[in-house]
């Protein structure tokens, strides 16, 4: 169990040591986003711009224009919707190499409630041309994703959660921008794509990101006890979207399920539906927040209340099967 944001703090420190061009900006939340670790080690390359997110995005763009690789962090609500136009104009359209790493994404922010629970950020960032969108499942995938973002030339949005989450990224697996990973069963992505639909078959395939990968693994385990064969793919790279793996899974499954801690509109579920509607139309069940705002409560209780835990996802799938 580790929080993705702790992993972010660690890998940022490593990157800071490796590359003098890495600079970090925060808007008065460095102790929460964990950029404080970098700040302590490299105070001259850390800029706390105060509670002024719009300015922070522009300053990052200016730093990038001179060859710096700025990592910009704050909570996901303030890192996206609040500064959408700054990201659109000063960063994405301008083609500046800025990495936005937001923490406190999704419902699991918990007691702070709806004002601090970003449920729209993936959709907002996904719709921007040039933007890469990554939602890692755990601490290890976060570390790999942050490294991949640093190596990538172009703007990147990485969304992390607040809470400690179980380690689920398959050992030995590699995160790559534009590629999903098979979390269960342990069949390599390439093999799923290459095999004939007769060789590998599932009743249901989950395509999930962030903390929902773990919930889908739990759901898959429950479904197996009911004789329903399930696959779970982690699509941390929401954009670029791994259409090859998505279509391959759809060809091998009776039902597809997307799962995200986000509005079911416009995020990962939207990407799955867009891909499959155009390429391989099958029934898709979108698991997420049903077009509403969040509320205060403990993280786990919120996931349960919004039907986002393994058992409720398993129930939804069983109901869907009964209708197929």
């Amino acid at each position: 169990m580790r929080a993705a944001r702790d992993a972010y703090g660690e890998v940022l420190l490593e990157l800071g040591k490796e590359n003098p061009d890495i600079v970090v900006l925060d808007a008065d939340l460095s102790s929460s986003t964990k950029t404080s670790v970098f700040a302590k080690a490299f105070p001259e390359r850390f800029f706390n711009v105060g509670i002024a997110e719009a300015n922070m995005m522009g300053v990052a763009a200016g730093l990038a224009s001179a060859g710096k690789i700025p990592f910009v962090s704050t909570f996901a609500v303030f890192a996206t919707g609040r500064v959408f136009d700054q990201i659109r104009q000063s960063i994405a359209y301008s083609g500046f190499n800025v990495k936005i790493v937001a923490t406190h994404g999704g419902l699991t922010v918990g007691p702070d409630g709806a004002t601090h629970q970003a449920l729209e950020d993936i959709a907002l960032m996904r719709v921007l041309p040039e933007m890469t969108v990554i939602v890692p499942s755990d601490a290890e995938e976060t570390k790999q994703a942050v490294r991949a973002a640093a190596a990538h030339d172009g703007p990147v949005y990485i969304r992390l959660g607040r809470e400690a989450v179980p380690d689920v990224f398959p050992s030995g697996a590699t995160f790559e921008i534009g590629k999903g990973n098979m979390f269960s069963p342990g069949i390599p992505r390439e093999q799923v794509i290459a095999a004939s639909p007769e060789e590998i078959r599932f009743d249901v395939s989950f395509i999930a990101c962030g903390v929902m990968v773990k919930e889908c693994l739990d759901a898959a385990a429950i479904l197996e006890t009911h004789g329903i064969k399930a696959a779970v793919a982690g699509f941390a790279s929401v954009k670029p979207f791994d259409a090859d793996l998505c279509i391959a899974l759809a060809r091998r499954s009776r039902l597809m399920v997307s799962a995200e801690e986000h509005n079911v509109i416009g995020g990962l579920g939207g990407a799955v539906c867009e891909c499959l509607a155009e390429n391989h139309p099958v029934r898709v069940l979108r698991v997420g927040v049903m077009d509403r705002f969040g509320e205060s409560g403990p993280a786990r209780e919120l996931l349960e209340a919004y039907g986002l835990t393994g058992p409720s996802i398993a129930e939804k799938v069983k109901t869907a099967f009964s209708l197929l």
Partner: protein
Amino acid sequence: MSEHEREVPGAGPSIDYVEKMAGRLRYHIIRMVGKAGSGHPGGSLSSADIVAALYFGGILRVDPKNPLWEDRDRFVLSKGHAAPVLYAALAEMGFFPVDVLLTLRKLGSPLQGHPDRKKVAGVEASTGSLGQGLSIAVGMALAGKLDKKDYKVWALLGDGECQEGQIWEAAMAAAHYKLDNLRAIVDHNGLQIDGPVGKVMSVEPLIDKFSAFGWETVSVDGHNVRELLDAMRRPAAGKPLAIIAETVKGKGVAFMENVAAWHGKAPQGEELERALAEVAMPENSEERGQ
């Protein structure tokens, strides 16, 4: 002396030369906006002397043959709708051929309605959504400090643009980081699309606001090249410098001067002819037998 070395103060290009170049910029602005059939002549004309002083008065250290030269001075046109004046200056500097100016706003042209840094050499920031350029300039200035470079970063703001809150976030940051390599010029023409700035939403006292935010400030006649150059050549004083340039919107075309309607409208037909006659360059005037 390398071509990149700064001009010695007082030994730079003559005032006459800068004024002549400002005239050329005005001529280009009217021609290109007229040809495009749309665009923003008012705020381009009010900025012409400021931009001419920067590019042709020995202020900006830029190299058209090496637009991404890492030691170059940076100029951010935060009031991106004044793109015509920037394009005209870049063309006259040799960043691209002057005849490209007439493709302004046409499909496939590098000269977008608002500046696109990816399409035009010499454009430092893609601006047009107001209020964002000063933040980008702050980032550029911070990078200069980090890299121990001696380049300067310039940002040209509109006075109406100063209604955007982000300008003041950036102003606060610039003073906080003691960015004496950053200089903002406000094109204080007093008009915005819906009318006088003071009537729409007053930004006054603008100079006091910048002072209160920790900037060094100076007010100049934005159409007096000598005053502009003197202010621009001020030595760094441990804090950012704001030059409030008092200007006339539409300056140089009598019927456009101080008329808000010419903020974002292209002269056409007979109006275009009259405007061109007023801003005609000397060689052009001779052709017309004037």
